[in-house]
């Protein structure tokens, strides 16, 4: 049986953080009483007409710019017709074959398209056990109905569940930094659905895909996709075929249940929305969208690699969140870190992603890098001390622990704890080395006989004597020197 690979595409809905709804002037609501943010337009009373929210267009153009999408010179709205109580007009105003944004990319994943549409209302299902009499009813709250949405569809470029979740995080972070949405999966301002299929590895054909909905965290997204890939693998391996359907993943049970078969898929009878006129983004609108972009993770990571010489992994890590990036850059700045000089940005990167992160993890709270526990200047000073070999790396970690715990000034802490590294040039270290060499004659002989590993015992003795304050490299050098090597 040929090896099967998973092919995944994502469909993301982003609720825009505008002040009013997509097609009327009602304010967006957050957990208010039902139906207090409605009007004849979003309740679809007879005779009403939609009007397009200017800010929603701006935000959509910013998203398009961030995802490097082609912007359609002219796009139109379409009606997507279907009956359901959460759709008061019995059609959703959306975009069909001429969306506002076309092909783009983010990271390694290509974007297929992005378009604008309005959100449905909320239905609260009340069963027989509820306060409401009658066998099963729903209560409809139209507050959410009409909230502006941008739907982003990727190409099926993802190949695994972890990769999908990771990319979804990148998308979320990117959109968050634009300031156009809260992109909170738990609150529903970010919704991610996954299209999953399998095919023989190396094949160019796409297998039948299923759609996974209702995963409201990145972890559940990953687990859900994993479960579905597994299910499809087993099905195909046992000779079955995958049917196109929509599935719901229950994270508690790990079960996948079919919501409805796409075979009975709706005919939405799309046609151009006659109540709205086309969008033709002007040069000025496009320019404003581009200029409104902050430096986004992908671009920043590239800059860190290119200009600061970081490796891809730490670059991506530091570039992801603007608060962390700003902190990192502040540390570099304060310490005067420059490529080629010490401490180099690479060194700073190692400290921030390594020792600092580890030290902060000891605490119970999450770190807010906008208001850092260890001020950038302090960390810069500390890194500088280690780089200049004034203290050992080990001592540096001790100082860091103190800084995290109580704060203070690194140099003062070094002084107080007596952590100053023993430099080789004041003779004290040379004296201790000599004493250690004398106390370990066997080791000394082995070293002279050409067994370099034996040096460890003497180094160990020196470290013990100096309480770790000696610079390991310098100790080594002195030993070699004193043994005449």
């Amino acid at each position, binding site marked *: 049986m040929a090896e099967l690979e998973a092919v995944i595409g994502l469909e993301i809905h982003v609720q825009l953080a505008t002040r009013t709804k997509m097609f009327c002037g009602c304010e967006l609501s957050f957990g208010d009483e039902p139906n207090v943010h409605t009007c*004849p337009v979003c*309740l*679809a*009373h*007879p*005779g*009403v*007409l*939609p*009007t*397009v929210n200017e800010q929603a267009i701006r935000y959509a153009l910013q998203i398009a710019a961030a995802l490097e999408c082609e912007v359609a010179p002219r796009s139109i709205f379409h*009606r997507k*017709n279907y*009956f359901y*109580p959460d759709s*008061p*007009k*019995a*059609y959703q105003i959306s975009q069909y074959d001429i969306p506002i944004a076309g092909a783009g990319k983010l990271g390694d994943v290509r974007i297929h398209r992005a378009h604008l549409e309005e959100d449905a209302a909320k239905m609260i299902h009340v069963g027989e056990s509820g306060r409401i009499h009658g066998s099963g009813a729903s209560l*409809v709250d139209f507050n959410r109905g009409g909230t502006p949405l941008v739907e982003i569809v990727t190409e099926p470029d993802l190949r695994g569940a972890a990769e999908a979740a990771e990319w979804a995080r990148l998308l979320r972070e990117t959109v968050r930094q634009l300031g156009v949405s809260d992109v909170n999966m738990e609150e529903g301002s970010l919704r991610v659905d996954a299209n999953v299929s399998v095919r023989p590895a190396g094949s160019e054909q796409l297998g039948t895909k299923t759609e996974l909905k209702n995963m409201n965290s990145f972890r559940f997204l990953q687990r859900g996709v994993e479960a579905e890939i597994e299910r499809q693998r087993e099905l195909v391996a046992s000779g079955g075929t995958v049917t196109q359907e929509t599935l719901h993943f229950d994270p508690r049970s790990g079960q996948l249940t079919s919501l409805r078969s796409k075979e009975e898929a709706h*005919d939405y*009878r*799309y*046609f151009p929305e*006659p*109540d*709205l*006129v086309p969008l033709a983004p002007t040069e000025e609108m496009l320019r404003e969208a581009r200029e409104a972009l902050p430096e986004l993770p992908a671009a920043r990571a590239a800059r860190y690699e290119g200009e600061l010489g970081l490796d891809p992994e730490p670059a991506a890590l530091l570039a992801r969140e603007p608060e962390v990036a700003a902190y990192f850059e502040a540390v570099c700045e304060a310490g005067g870190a420059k490529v080629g000089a010490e401490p180099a940005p690479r060194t700073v990167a190692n400290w921030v992603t390594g020792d600092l992160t580890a030290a902060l993890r000891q605490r119970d709270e999450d770190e807010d890098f906008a208001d850092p526990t260890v001020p950038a200047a302090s960390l810069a000073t500390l890194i500088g001390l280690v780089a200049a070999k004034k203290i050992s790396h080990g001592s540096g970690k001790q100082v860091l622990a103190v800084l995290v715990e109580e704060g203070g000034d690194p140099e003062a802490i070094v002084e107080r704890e007596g952590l100053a590294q023993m430099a080789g040039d004041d003779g004290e270290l040379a004296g201790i080395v000599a004493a250690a060499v004398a106390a370990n004659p066997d080791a000394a002989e082995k070293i002279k006989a050409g067994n370099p590993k034996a040096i460890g015992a003497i180094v160990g003795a020196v470290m013990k004597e100096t309480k770790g304050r000696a610079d390991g490299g310098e100790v080594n050098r002195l030993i070699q020197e004193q043994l005449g090597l």
Partner: protein
Amino acid sequence: MGELGQLSVAEAAARIAAGELSAAEYFEAWQAAAAGDELNAYLWSVENAADYEVEQGPLGGIPVAVKDIFCTEGTPTTAGSRILEGYEPPYTATAVRRLDAAGARVLGKTNMDEFAMGSSNENSAYGPVLNPWDRGRVPGGSSGGSAAAVAGGLAPCAIGTDTGGSIRQPAALCGIVGLKPTYGSISRYGMIAFASSLDQCGPLTRDVTDAALLLAALQGRDPCDSTSVGIEGGIVAPSREDLKGLRFGVPAELSRDAIDAGVRASFEATLARIEALGGEIAEVSLPSAEHGISAYYVIAPAEASSNLARYDGVRYGMRRGGGGDLVEMYETTRAEGFGPEVKRRIMLGTYALSSGYYDAYYGQAQKVRTRIAEDFTTAFGAVDFVVTPTSPSVAFGLGEKTDDPLSMYLNDFFTVPMSLAGIPAISIPSGLAQPEGGGDELPVGFQIAAPAFAEQKLLEAAYALEQGIGFEQEAGSRRPWNGGSGG
């Protein structure tokens, strides 16, 4: 009503403004007339004239009959349908608010074909409207109530809507003036939607001057309607005295088709009248116009099927079958709430938009539409106006065409192309003619169409022609509002 009933809106407004006529007295007289409605023209009219407040403005003191398709806050608005029985809108249509702002007041809500679907006003859930010229005949539709009210002396003027001819055709059948302005000149906000890309509000009046007066107040860009632009330059009362230097095109294709002899005779006589007034008649070609009905009866039902989907019993209006499941509620409510013509068009429209059929029907029809618009643009390169009879026949008998919807649709043959092209067109009474089966003479309408946003030019020409025709002299005494019983 006596003398007050003889005044045109322009005359009455001028006298009220000059203090020569009491606005309250004027309104009261019309309120009483409306209360005596025997034509079933009104679904609701003002009960207490004392509620009326005197207002200033170009239409200060003028009562207007408003087709029940316009939402009027706190007043029943049904669109001629059971599904909205008892519904009182929470807001007022922009067109009505603009009339208000000009000083006019709503006199009543007029009967109409259900959701504006019809050409005879026999599709109303609240009974047919009778033609004041002959109560055994239809007034036309779908603005039949508005037309009958004006022609029957129950209102000095009215507004209606025109999607494929629903202002012009009833105006013709009732012997009054009806104007469908350029698509986009009057806001559609608050006008219950039938076919969004075709619906337009317009005046039904006794003469062209009154139509201009109403249009001036109604037109304008509305932020609530993204498709509205208004008419640049506004509108003033027409004053043209002749038709010298103007060219009138008669479409070769449209004249070929079946027109009643009496209508044809009146049409030819009007062409001669145009020449007598100094105008030039020329033949033009609108090759795609003959497919107008086919395209219209795909596009309009398609848009209607979507626009009427909101009547589902969830948030307002009628609800039936709520004891069953959701689908049962939808189906029962709509089966019981909609009449047969509405159901027919919803089904047609749904079919035309459905997957696999969209290209052949809706897509194709929108291409025909483009062609028709191009035909008019070409024609207007050679002539100033295009003219046709408004309707192929005079008012037909109640029940005469109800068994054959297709024959009913063909009433719109001459009016539909202008709707598809979005251009303005007016119908003015051109004379009287006997119906095909014989009998008393009935009004004939003459349609003049102009390029988009050329309403002022259109009104000027229509005014001059109206004066030249002298319909008042010919049929004035038989006019129902002049005390004549019509037929």
